[in-house]
């Protein structure tokens, strides 16, 4: 596939191996005959299934990324980390009156965070430590604003020495905030209109039309 003959030598899942240049970690695994399924999902960098840990040539720090996005470079030492256990609290949002007030019970470990910033390894470039700080300070709007890109890969949780799972904490806040917001007026109006059978006569008309009449009807409605 790659017309350039260039190759790189990497250490893949603990084995030294020569592969064509320009492949991602997942492609490198496939290219060398590994039957990888568990760590593969969307192949677009959005599902968070293919997390990897790697040590670049002559680097001292292990870094983290996504296997479908990380291009392997010569001397790389890389493994897949397709799953890391982290605690998800059990709660039923529908039974909670003011869910945000219950955050200290639901994720008590959040308040043991000492802002060490070890969690700031997000492949989506989220400032995880900043989000946790905002959460502790009950600035929930700020906390959620920054996690819309979170793909729930859980890498941040794998680094936390206090056992906090930032992705689950943030998701709870996201859901709780939504629950506490008033319903959108335009939606409520439309639902009320439909409840009072606002369109019943129109649908009755649609049901009786022949195919060609229906096509003309649709054009009329759409252009009105």
């Amino acid at each position, binding site marked *: 596939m790659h017309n350039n003959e260039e190759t790189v030598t990497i250490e893949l899942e603990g084995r030294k191996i020569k592969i064509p240049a320009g492949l991602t970690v997942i492609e490198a695994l496939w290219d060398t005959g590994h039957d990888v399924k568990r760590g593969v999902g969307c192949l677009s960098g*959005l599902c968070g299934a293919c997390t990897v840990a790697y040590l670049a040539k002559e680097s001292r720090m292990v870094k983290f990324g996504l296997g479908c996005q990380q291009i392997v470079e010569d001397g790389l030492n890389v493994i897949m980390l397709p799953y890391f256990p982290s605690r998800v609290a059990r709660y039923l949002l*529908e039974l909670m009156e003011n869910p945000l007030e219950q955050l200290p019970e639901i994720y008590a470990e959040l308040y043991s965070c000492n802002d060490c910033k070890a969690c700031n390894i997000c492949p989506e470039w989220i400032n995880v430590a900043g989000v946790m700080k905002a959460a502790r300070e009950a600035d929930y709007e700020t906390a959620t604003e920054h996690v819309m890109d979170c793909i729930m890969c859980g890498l941040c949780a794998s680094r936390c020495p206090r056992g906090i799972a930032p992705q689950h904490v943030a998701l709870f806040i*996201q859901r709780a905030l939504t629950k506490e917001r008033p319903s959108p007026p*335009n939606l409520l109006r439309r639902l009320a209109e439909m409840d009072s059978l606002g369109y019943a006569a129109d649908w009755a008309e649609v049901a009786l039309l022949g195919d060609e009449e229906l096509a003309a009807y649709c054009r009329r409605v*759409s252009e009105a």
Partner: protein
Amino acid sequence: MYTDHLFDAIEVVAATREKRKQQELARLPEEAVEQLLKKFHPDFRDSAFRNLRVGMNRGERTTHEIADLLEAFSDLDYSKIDLRPEYDTDVLVLGGGGAGVTAALFAESMGARVLLATKLRLGNSNTIMALGGMQASVSEGDSPLRHFADTMIAGNNAGRRELVKAMVEDGPKIVKWLLETGVDFDRDEAGNLAAKKAGGISAPRLISIGDHTGLNIMKVLKDEIGKRASIDMSEFTPAVELTTDESGACNGAILFDLGRKRHFAVRAKAVILATGGSGRLHMQGFPTSNNFGATGDALVLAYRAGAKLEGVDSFQYHPTGVMFPEHMVGVLVTEAIRSLGGHLVNVKGERFINELETRDVCAAAIIRECERGNGVTTPSGKVGVWLDAPLIEEAQGKGFLRKRFPSLFRHLMRVRIDISKQPLLVFPTLHYQNGGILIDETGETTVRNLFVAGEAAGGIHGRNRAMGNALLDIFVFGRRAGLAASQLMPTEPGEVTLNHVYRHYDRLKSLRISSVAKSPTLFPEFIVNKL
């Protein structure tokens, strides 16, 4: 990073930018559109299709890739499979995307015991990749009827009116349910849902969550399903066959445990197939935006069980899939880049189509340019055209693209391509299976007790799906299928058999059809070289 050869080509784009800005390209008249589609849209390439020789849709046309699978044998030795169920449940849901999870949640809410089995990890699906938004008629000046009309027109009036009506009428209710479950959508100052206009939509109707609508919905639903006591989950266990009783009604499935490499039978009173589309079959050699698991398994399983399909000769090709760098081939570049004024530019630095034409027209025009030799060739020999994103950055101000399209920006920045300065190389990518297994308003197929929801279902979108309707349809029909399936709780599933498979095989043999394909596919072949 772009190669020297591509950098040279980019210079042409930069050099012609000023001139192109002045240029107005008119929309094509109706006949010209028709001609363009007939000549260059992949759905009209007759050599890519053939008529099915067996099954409920015998004599109807579909792509070779799908026909191969529908006329194939499985590579399993059925005599070795133990049909005694290892697991018994009320509702078996196959597939862990938006449709499957919704179906499971609603079936459970009616008191049913549910097993949800997925091929990959729960949530790994095309749902998370839905960027743009979801259609729901919530804004002033819009109505369910208008939504109905737009959907019918987009589908070339080939969608089934009762299904389209069901979808548009449920739209606002689905939004309400999502809000209650903890999914918020973008709002305006008054707290109203902010609805946007889009191509082929006659009123503002697209509601979204930034640029990550599907991802943020799926995150919440995944979280919610984990909290329901009566839903069991089985990841990495794709279905390889449905089972039927003496009367031909569906009563379970054979799953394959990928980790332990063994098959096991699950018996259920109703089965909901929600395993998504078929982009990973790479129809006609096209790249795809679909996830790793989208191999059309639902079509195969349901067809063998005797279900009728509809419209499986119609696919949506999204005009702008990435063509370079290699590892991102097929990945979607959102429509918004074109709506914001990004030009499509050929190798000579010329525009060749009004970028606001519909998806199928833009896709056909790009294919035309590339076939005429006006495309740009990548180091591996692929061909595409430029999408001039820097033009938007110039018009909207520095930092705009990074802020508005953070994940696209990030993914390309990782390989040192700066989309605020360099254009994107794009080509149509296989995006959506317009047809599928025919359902009724409850989600039931022509096989009793077999329900389908999501992209696997057919009859809703006709010959072309409007933007934002897929994200709605998975929740609408997931909910309907879940509710209808839970009604079967009091029934007794009969004896578990594979009689329908034997019948299908007998027909293949009597027609002397032999195929090298084995189906279902489950996973794409070794796909380092995707094309």
